[in-house]
């Protein structure tokens, strides 16, 4: 099937998904004009909504990339949430104890976040490579461990000293990701785009990406022609962990300006679903991340104006993924209609 027809099929699946979602929303009592208004007009006509969408799309893009590079090595990183948590913990560590000179602190926070995200990947990677412990389960279990560790910090040593709420004390101005100079766009958007370019280069143009394709296609064959398969998979997994950690940093420093109890919720699954929908293509990751972000921002206003629980958006996201995933059937298989 030609590339163009493939794209058409996927768009068809997407369209059906959106249609089913729209019908579901109408079912709970939102009229069609209101739907158009909430999901399209009010988002694209207000600069505040556009900013909100972009601020959400940035971490979503980064977790999408994280999932994508994992998939490319056939390493299922389901532990994105845990790495997001640890990334943000790493960044907050720098912010809380004022490590390093002020003008470099934000860079230090970003590097620490990537390092912590990567570190959280080491155990499941080791278990997978050395003992063949399934990484799907081990990375996922570590999400719960990371979450409990986060709660331990927020209810213990890192509790806000002024308000006694379970979140870290607010980052200082130099520790936040602010808007790009002169524009109303958060720096996290720029960071996300830089990594999209880097990943495009890494996956499709670099020698690493070329070898990784061998490993993906047939790891036994790759091994027998002398490719260090374990090393390739390890590098991909560690990059995946580092990216998730970075996403944690962009959420805490770009959106919340502090470490909160639930900042990571949903990013794990969404990252995987975005990576899957985008078929591991970094450019498509951006598009699907934007789409998910639009849904989420519209969902917030549905919650405020129509009292529709935010869970509705999660449901819609799942419906869309199901429809697109099912539409792939028509790409993989030729259908003969026998008369």
């Amino acid at each position, binding site marked *: 099937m030609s590339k163009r027809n493939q794209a058409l099929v996927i768009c068809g699946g997407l369209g059906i998904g959106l249609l089913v979602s729209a019908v579901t929303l109408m079912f709970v009592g939102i009229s069609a004009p209101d739907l158009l208004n909430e999901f399209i007009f009010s988002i694209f006509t207000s600069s505040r909504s556009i900013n909100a969408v972009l601020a959400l799309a940035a971490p979503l893009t980064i977790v999408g990339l994280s999932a994508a590079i994992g998939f490319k090595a056939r390493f299922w990183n389901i532990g994105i949430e845990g790495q997001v948590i640890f990334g943000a913990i790493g960044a907050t560590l720098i912010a809380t104890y004022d490590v390093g000179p002020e003008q470099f602190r934000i860079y230090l926070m970003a590097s620490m976040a990537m390092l912590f995200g990567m570190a959280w990947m080491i155990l499941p990677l080791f278990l997978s490579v050395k003992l063949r412990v399934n990484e799907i389960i081990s990375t996922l279990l570590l999400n719960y*461990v990371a979450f409990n560790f986060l709660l331990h910090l927020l209810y213990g040593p890192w509790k806000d000293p002024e308000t006694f709420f379970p979140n870290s004390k607010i980052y200082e101005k130099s520790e936040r990701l602010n808007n790009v100079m002169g524009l109303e766009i958060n720096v996290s958007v720029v960071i996300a785009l830089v990594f999209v370019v880097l990943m495009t280069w890494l996956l499709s143009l670099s020698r690493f990406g070329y070898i990784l394709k061998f490993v993906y296609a047939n790891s036994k064959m790759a091994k027998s022609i002398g490719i260090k398969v374990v090393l390739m998979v390890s590098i991909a997994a560690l990059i995946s962990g580092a990216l998730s950690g970075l996403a944690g940093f962009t959420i805490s420093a770009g959106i919340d300006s502090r470490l909160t109890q639930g900042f990571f919720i949903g990013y794990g699954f969404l990252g995987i679903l975005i990576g899957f929908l985008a078929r591991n293509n970094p450019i498509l990751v951006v598009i699907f991340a934007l789409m998910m972000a639009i849904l989420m921002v519209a969902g917030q206003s549905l919650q405020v104006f129509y009292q529709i629980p935010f869970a509705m958006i999660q449901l819609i*996201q799942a419906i869309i993924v199901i429809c697109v995933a099912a539409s792939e059937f028509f790409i993989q298989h030729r259908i003969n209609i026998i008369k």
Partner: protein
Amino acid sequence: MDFLVNWISIVPQFAVPFALATLGLIICEKSGVLNLGAEGFMLMGAMAGVGATILTGGPYFGLLIAAIAAGFLSLIFAFLVIVMRVNQVISGLTMVFLAQGLTTLVSTQMEWTNKSFVGIGGLNFGLLADIPIIGRFIFGHDIIVYSTILIFAATVYIFDQTEIGLRIKAVGENPEAADSAGVSVLYHRFLAVVVGCMLVGLAGGYLSVVVSKIWVDGMSGGRGWITIALVIFARWRFWTAMLGAVLFGCVEALIPRVAAIGLQVPQYFVLMLPYLATLAVMIWASLGKNSSGAPAALGKAFVREERS
């Protein structure tokens, strides 16, 4: 001594959800369908069970609905992986995501969240329960605890002795051969997925209707994932799965009691216990024999060769 008796006598309550869900997953996976959606089906069962109990006042009816609701949801999953041949890992994860959204949405709209109700109590064994120590271990649990053992025995019988059990195993081990012998891969995989998910749903229903007697969003709290690990630990064998479930019942029953022994461990580290224990069990399982015991066609979609 008192501590031990108190601890062990509540283990069955905590073991039953693991046991039923692990059993359900093994049934599903014996047919060759990898089910990573356990957490979602469990949530669905837990929410539907509470809903039905609140609406009708009948907790046993609630448990029935818990199983049925999860069974219905699993039809989507079965359709995706069996008919549309979507990647089984992605389909499973999507089901979890879907169920999280769906259960939170429905329970909020119906105002079932944080609403308490009368659940199911222990059976009355009269004097038997007064036998020192043994009385509390064996008697005084609710009827589902005892039924679980029966369900296990029945499943083992079905898989070892009956035609249908053998057929399900056949489509999980070698679907091509089964197909050419005239066994419908589609039908048997659908059957195994739906029945398996109904048991996972029942496990969820037990969690909410019997154990906690309340519904809270996301209340399965990772037990579905632990169950997936238990299947690997049990090497897809039924009675070993029961053993694993009891082991994790012990771990969970221990958590609220750690403070009672006087151990000064920060509470959130104690809450990590089940997940760390699961990881330990996975590592232990990987050290053993070379063959994992997994059905040969697990995770692979069946594509029938074209016949001309």
